[in-house]
């Protein structure tokens, strides 16, 4: 539309990319392919969907990379086209905008006053010189730039504001570029990883999500405690990890990590992402003695630690703890060291009754699976104490600040583009037979209502001058 300049060599590629039709086509095309991306499950969710497709359809989907569409080459080509279109359009139209910005119309123009509505001029009985001074002052107080010129006994004023609103569009376009650049920086120099840390343990490695490759952090992170709170309704209330950051064996930082309250250490951000249980190394045991059904002993036994047997016939320890063994549920391996005689060991199960029904007869008879195989004691496994692990999202994204800058400029640019306009006002003060006449005219780039309001306002103030 604004192509006032004709280029010496009209480059067809340039012409193609400077078309606003192309912009609209790309915007709508992008909207349509995004719809596909929300209907076809992406990444992790795709497996189930893919299983229902016919082999031909599946191969088409795979060729087009539809299961990871937003990272597909063709999707990036569309984004690149939009970017190129945006840059070329901006450059192509900039000279015309610059001209509008630089334009300094003369104050002494009579054209704006032709066909001026009657209510845009007033006549006052005051003297010409005073009136002219007051009008000049009024304009200066309301406009950034004013100029005046006297021609043949009449005084002409030119005032303008909002010249910079012509650049709003360029700020918006620049902001889109900034956001895309920020995203590129993030994808080249950043990473998204995760790590699970059991309470009381530490790690210096995290797992990159994209290619499942371990990454050395360069420091150690330890989880001292994880806790989860629930509301009475059963909905989760708070997830909290107490983390310590350790460099060269020394704890440098300690912090509580909550959802919405990430922690940052040495340029790497940690987010509370998930949690879970792992079996700990401690089991709850109950030991009863044959012929003494009344009394039984509860023991909290940590794996590998030796405990003496009740009524002192030797010692035992928990040699192994499994959350599930041969699909028979939680089990513990008890190793007995009698005062005299051979050491022996056997498995005990939390679901003892069920296991005994399931096991084949020879195994039931085997001392390896008999909780009473060391007389007179009977061991039963009451439970394995579990520990929490905290699931952390571990990211580095050096492009984020660029993206935020882009967001800021986008909002600023949209404000300028939509709500500011270049207002130009011409005022003429001249002498007539009925007194001094003030006429006000104006033009605006957009928002004619705003201009009208400004002119009405000026006229009212000028009436008050007299």
């Amino acid at each position, binding site marked *: *539309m604004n192509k006032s300049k004709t280029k010496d060599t009209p480059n067809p590629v340039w012409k193609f990319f400077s078309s*606003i*039709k192309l*912009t*609209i086509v790309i*915007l*709508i095309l*992008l*909207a349509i392919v*995004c*719809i596909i*991306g*929300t*209907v076809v499950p*992406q990444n992790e*969710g795709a497996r189930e969907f893919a299983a229902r497709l016919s082999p031909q359809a599946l191969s088409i989907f795979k060729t087009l990379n539809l299961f990871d569409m*937003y990272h597909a080459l063709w999707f990036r080509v569309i984004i690149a086209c939009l970017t190129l279109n945006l840059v070329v359009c901006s450059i192509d139209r900039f000279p015309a905008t610059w001209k509008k910005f630089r334009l300094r119309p003369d104050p002494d123009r009579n054209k704006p006053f032709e066909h001026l509505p009657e209510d845009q001029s007033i006549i006052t009985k005051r003297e010409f010189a005073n009136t002219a001074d007051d009008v000049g002052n009024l304009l200066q107080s309301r406009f950034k730039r004013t100029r005046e010129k006297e021609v043949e006994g009449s005084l002409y004023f030119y005032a303008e504001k909002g010249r910079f609103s012509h650049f709003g569009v360029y700020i918006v376009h620049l902001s889109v570029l900034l956001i895309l650049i920020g*995203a590129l920086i993030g994808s080249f120099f950043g990473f*998204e990883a995760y790590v699970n840390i059991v309470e009381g343990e530490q790690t210096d490695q995290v797992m990159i999500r994209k290619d499942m490759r371990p990454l050395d952090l360069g420091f150690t992170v330890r989880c001292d405690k994880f806790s989860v709170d629930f*509301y009475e*309704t059963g*909905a*989760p*209330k*708070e*997830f909290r990890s107490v983390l310590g950051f350790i460099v060269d064996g020394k704890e440098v930082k300690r912090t509580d990590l*909550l*959802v*919405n*309250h*990430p922690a940052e250490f040495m340029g790497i*951000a940690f*987010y*509370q*992402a998930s949690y879970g249980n792992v079996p700990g190394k401690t089991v709850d045991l109950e030991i009863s003695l044959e012929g003494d059904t009344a009394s039984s002993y509860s023991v909290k036994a940590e794996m590998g630690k030796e405990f003496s047997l009740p009524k002192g016939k030797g010692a035992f320890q928990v040699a192994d703890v499994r959350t599930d063994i041969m699909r028979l549920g939680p089990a513990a391996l008890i190793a007995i060291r009698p005062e005299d005689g051979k050491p022996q060991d056997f498995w005990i199960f939390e679901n003892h009754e069920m296991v005994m029904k399931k096991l084949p007869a020879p195994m039931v008879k085997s001392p390896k699976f008999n909780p009473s195989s060391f007389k007179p004691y009977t061991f039963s496994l009451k439970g394995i104490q579990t520990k929490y692990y905290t699931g952390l*999202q*571990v*990211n580095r*994204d050096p492009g*984020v600040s660029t*993206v*935020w800058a882009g*967001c800021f400029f*986008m*909002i600023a640019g*949209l*404000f300028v583009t*939509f709500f500011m306009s270049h207002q130009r006002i011409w005022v003429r003060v001249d002498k007539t037979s009925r007194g001094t006449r003030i006429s006000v005219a104006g033009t605006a780039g957009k928002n004619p209502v705003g201009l009208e309001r400004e002119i009405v306002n000026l006229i009212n103030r000028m009436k008050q001058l007299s």
Partner: protein
Amino acid sequence: MINATILSYTTFVYFAAFLLYLLYMVMHRSLLGQLATFASLAGLTAQTVAMILRWIESYELGFGHAPLSNLYESLIFFAWTIMLLYLIVEWRTKNKTLGAFVTPLAFLAMAYASFSPDINSHIQPLIPALKSNWLISHVITCFFGYAAFGLSFALSIMYLIKRLDKQGSKGIFVKLIPAQDILDDLNYQMIVIGFLMLTLGIITGSVWAHSAWGTYWSWDPKETWSLITWLIYASVIHSRMVRGWRGRKIAILSIIGFCCVLFTYFGVNYLAGLHSYAK
């Protein structure tokens, strides 16, 4: 739960306002128009009171959060923003015909919230992901955007009706509807406000997502649909600002845009994603 009771009554007040606006358009009695405006104002006031009561009640329950946290509360807020924005436009333009096209949106949102068996009107505590200062700014910007697009949708329908009538006889129904170019101008203003608000909504959402999950954009269906909506309205603005499209084309694009808004709001709940608590 006095707030939910007031809110369900407000539904009927908005329905009454809709009928009054409609009667006003057909019968051209200014009294009916005044009554319609009064009903809208009364409904909005009652609704505001109910929302404040709900906020206070959430503190009494020990949860203490703004009533913007689930589908019920968001629908109520949606209706509230529509009515507020509409009454401002009515006051500025001194034309009441838009009311007959906008109040049904508010009424339907309220009716869906109050009477759908799938929607829980109880005040629920905030899950950890929602405990953020960004909740309020994100929801407010998004819903003012949605409301502005809702008004733009209503104006587009009015434009198309007015346009149809131009070709036929002078119907009494369209007589009070403003001229086409006024509708077109107002429509564009609503699109501009909506676009700015939607942009702010997406940005506040990104900032929030970045602090909650560590990534400002994860192509979650709701995020993607809000981007689709943004792209549609961006193309509307470009086609008008640069190519000078007016009238029918803009009206049709705006209707498509509002369908995207509705899908972003409701449809996405049928696709799994990070926003599932808004169900």
